[in-house]
C-alpha cells in the first residue's frame, strides 16, 4: 500500500471513530464514502490487501443471513474474514469494512445493482448468487436488466474465480453462460415435499433466458424457484453438486437437512426457520466447498449462526416476546407468511401482528408490491394486526381485501406509538410478531436501543 493511500485510509478511519464518538449515527458507511471521495481506486487498492481471497455475495433476499453463515463457516475453518456484517452493502459499505477491520480473507454482501462495479474493482475469488426476485423496481429497474448486467459481469470474472449459483432459480442459473463447469458450484433442493401449494402469483421467470420459450415446472418451492425445464430449447435446471435430498422443517426452531456434497452426505442444521433459510445455508455450504473447506466443519459453523439484525430476531420486553422478521418484497414476504402460518389449519396461530410499511428510498418508494404478496394466507389466522409506517393505511387496506376482518385492523402510523399499542394489546407470556420493511426495521432498532432493549445496529 503506498504511503499517500495509507494516509488517506487513516483519515477515513479517524472520521469513522469521530462520527461514532459523537453519537451521530451508524458510521457503517462514512469512512468508505470519505476514502472513495479521496481516491477513486480505493476499492481495488483495499481489495489487493486481501491476498486474492475475496467472496462476494448477492441476491434479492438473504444477503445478510447468507454472509453471516459463510462468516461462521470460514471462522470454523480457522479464517478471520473482513466482513461488512452490519449489512451496508453498497461500495462505501464494503470499503468501510475493509478500512476498519483486518483478516486473512474478505467476505462482502453486495447490493444487486452495485455487484458488477464492486466485482470489477475487487476481483473476487468467489461470487455467490442466491436468487433474484422482483424488488424495488423503482430503484433497480426491471429484473431482466439485472440478469443482463450479472451475465456480463460473469464474463469478465478472472479465470479460476468460483461461481456459486442457485440451480433452482432459472434467472441465477442462466448467468453461468459459457463459464467452464469446473469453476461453478450449483446448489439446490431436491426434496420436493415443500412445494408451494396453489397458484404462484409473484413469479418472475416465466420465460426461458435462452430461447424465450415458456418454462415448465415440475415443482415450485417459492416464487419462480423450483425444478424447471424449457420445452423449446431443452435448457433445464442444472444438476446441483450441493443438494438437499431431505428437508425437515421444525417451525420457528429451524430446519434439519440431509445434504449431498462432492465429499459425501452430511447433516446440516439450520437454526433459522423457513425454506428460504435452507437456501441461505446451502449457499454458504457451497461457498465453503468452493473454498476447499471440509463440509462437516462448514456445517458446524453454519449451525451456530444466530439471528442477524432483524431477521427472525426475538427480543424480550416486559414478559412479552417481540419476534422481528423483515419483509421487503413479495417473495420474501410470502416466505415469512408461510413460516408464520404453517402447520395448524383453521386456528388463530398469530394472535398479535405488527406490520410496518414504509416508502422511503431504501424501501423502494413504490408500495405496489404488497398486492403481489399472498397476505390472503393470513385470513382467519390472525387475532389483531397493528399497521404502522408511512403507508400504514394502505397496508391495512391490503389486509382487508385479503379477507381479514376490518375490526381486527388498527392503523397507528408512527412506529413508536404503534409498537406501544401493539405491545399493550399483547398479553403476558405472549409473542408479538413484527414485520417491518427495511427503514421501519431501522426505526424499530433505534427505538429498542434507546429503551435499552437491543444493541445499536452498528455494533
Amino acid at each position, binding site marked *: 500500500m503506498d504511503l499517500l493511500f495509507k494516509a488517506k485510509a487513516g483519515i477515513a478511519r479517524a472520521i469513522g471513530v469521530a462520527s461514532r464518538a459523537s453519537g451521530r449515527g451508524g458510521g457503517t458507511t462514512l469512512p468508505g464514502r470519505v476514502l472513495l471521495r479521496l481516491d477513486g481506486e480505493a476499492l481495488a487498492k483495499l481489495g489487493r490487501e486481501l491476498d486474492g481471497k475475496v467472496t462476494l455475495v448477492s441476491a434479492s433476499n438473504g444477503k445478510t443471513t447468507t454472509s453471516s453463515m459463510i462468516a461462521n463457516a470460514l471462522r470454523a475453518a480457522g479464517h478471520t474474514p473482513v466482513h461488512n456484517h452490519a449489512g451496508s452493502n453498497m461500495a462505501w459499505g464494503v470499503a468501510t469494512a475493509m478500512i476498519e477491520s483486518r483478516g486473512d480473507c474478505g467476505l462482502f454482501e453486495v447490493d444487486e445493482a452495485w455487484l458488477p462495479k464492486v466485482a470489477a474493482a475487487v476481483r473476487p475469488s468467489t461470487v455467490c448468487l442466491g436468487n433474484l426476485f422482483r424488488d424495488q423496481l423503482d430503484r433497480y429497474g426491471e429484473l431482466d436488466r439485472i440478469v443482463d448486467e450479472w451475465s456480463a459481469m460473469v464474463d469478465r470474472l478472472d479465470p479460476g474465480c468460483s461461481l456459486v449459483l442457485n440451480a433452482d432459480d432459472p434467472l441465477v442459473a442462466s448467468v453461468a453462460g459459457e463459464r467452464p463447469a469446473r469453476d461453478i458450484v450449483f446448489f439446490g433442493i431436491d426434496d420436493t415435499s415443500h412445494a408451494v401449494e396453489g397458484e404462484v*402469483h409473484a413469479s418472475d421467470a416465466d420465460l426461458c433466458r435462452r430461447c*424465450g420459450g415458456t418454462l415448465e415446472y415440475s415443482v415450485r418451492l417459492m416464487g419462480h424457484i423450483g425444478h424447471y425445464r424449457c420445452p423449446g430449447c431443452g435448457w433445464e435446471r442444472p444438476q446441483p453438486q450441493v443438494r438437499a435430498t431431505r428437508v425437515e422443517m421444525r417451525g420457528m426452531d429451524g430446519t434439519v437437512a440431509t445434504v449431498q456434497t462432492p465429499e459425501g452426505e452430511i447433516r446440516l442444521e439450520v437454526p433459522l426457520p423457513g425454506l428460504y433459510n435452507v437456501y441461505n445455508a446451502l449457499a454458504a455450504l457451497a461457498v465453503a466447498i468452493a473454498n476447499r473447506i471440509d463440509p462437516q466443519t462448514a456445517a458446524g459453523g453454519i449451525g451456530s449462526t444466530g439471528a442477524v439484525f432483524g431477521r427472525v430476531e426475538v427480543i424480550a420486553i416486559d414478559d412479552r416476546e417481540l419476534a422481528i422478521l423483515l419483509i421487503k418484497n413479495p417473495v420474501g414476504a410470502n416466505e415469512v407468511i408461510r413460516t408464520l402460518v404453517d402447520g395448524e389449519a383453521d386456528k388463530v396461530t398469530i394472535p398479535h401482528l405488527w406490520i410496518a410499511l414504509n416508502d422511503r428510498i431504501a424501501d423502494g418508494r413504490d408500495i405496489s408490491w404488497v*398486492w403481489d404478496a399472498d397476505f390472503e394466507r393470513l385470513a382467519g389466522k390472525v387475532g389483531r394486526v397493528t399497521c404502522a409506517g408511512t403507508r400504514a393505511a394502505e397496508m391495512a387496506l391490503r389486509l382487508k381485501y385479503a379477507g381479514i376482518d376490518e375490526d381486527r385492523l388498527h392503523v397507528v402510523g408512527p412506529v413508536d406509538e404503534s409498537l406501544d399499542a401493539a405491545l399493550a394489546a399483547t398479553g403476558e407470556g405472549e409473542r408479538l410478531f413484527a414485520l417491518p420493511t427495511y427503514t421501519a426495521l431501522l426505526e424499530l432498532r433505534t427505538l429498542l436501543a434507546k429503551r435499552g432493549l437491543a444493541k445499536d445496529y452498528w455494533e
Partner: protein
Amino acid sequence: MDFRLLALYPRQMNIYADRGNLIFLQRRCEWRGIGFRLASAAHGESFDPAGHDMIYIGGGQDRDQIEIAADMARTKRDALAEAAAAGVQVLAVCGGYQLLGHSYSLDGRKVEGVGLLDIETVRESGPRLIGNIAIETALRDAEGPLELAGFENHGGRTYLGDRATPLGKVVNGFGNNGNEGHEGAIGGPDGNVIGTYLHGPLLPKNHRFADLLIERALRRRHPGIGSLEPAGDDDLERAAHETALRAARG
C-alpha cells in the same frame, strides 16, 4: 346481476402487482352482492368480444412486451376492437396502455400496437419517469370530480393524437411524457377505453374510480341501474387514497 371481468395476459402483464386491481374489483362487487366472474386470455388465446363487461391489461417487462405485442395483434386485436366499439369498459395500465396505441419504439425497434387508442409512444433520451403521481380527471361521480393517486415508472413518452383526450391533468408527477402536463388517454365511442401510466394496483388507491368503472361496465347491459350501493363505510379506502395523494404531493 354479475360483473364479468376479462384480464389479458394476467401472468406476464402483472409486473407491478396488477392483480391488486382484480382483487379490489372482485371484493367490491362481492360486498354488494354483485356476482363476480374473472376470465383470462393468455398468450395465443382469443376471446369472445360479447362475453365481458370490462377488460383489463396491466404492465410487463420490456422483453415480455415485445412478445405480447405480436401475440396481441395475432390473436386479440379484432376481438378488442369489436368489444370497444360495443362500449365494453377497457382499462389499460402502463405497458398495457402503450400496447393499446398505434406503436411504441423500444431499443431502436418499432413495436406495433393494436391501435385502440390514438396515441404513440417513443423512447426519448432522458431518465425513466419514476415517482408518486396525482392527477385531476374530468371524470366525476355523485361526490364530484375524481382525483387519482398512484405511482408511475416508465421509460416511454406517450403523445396523444386528435382522437384521444387526456385522462387528467398532472398535479404532481410526470404523466404521459413529462412535458405536456397531462396523463393517460381516453378513447372509444363512449369514452370507454381508458389508458394510464398510474401503474399496478391503482384501483386500491382510488376506490371511487374503481366503483365508477364497475358502474359504467354494468350499465351497458343493465341500462336501468342507478348508482351502486355502498360497499361499506370505506373509511380505510378513503384513508388509503388520502395517504397516496399526500405521498404524491411530497
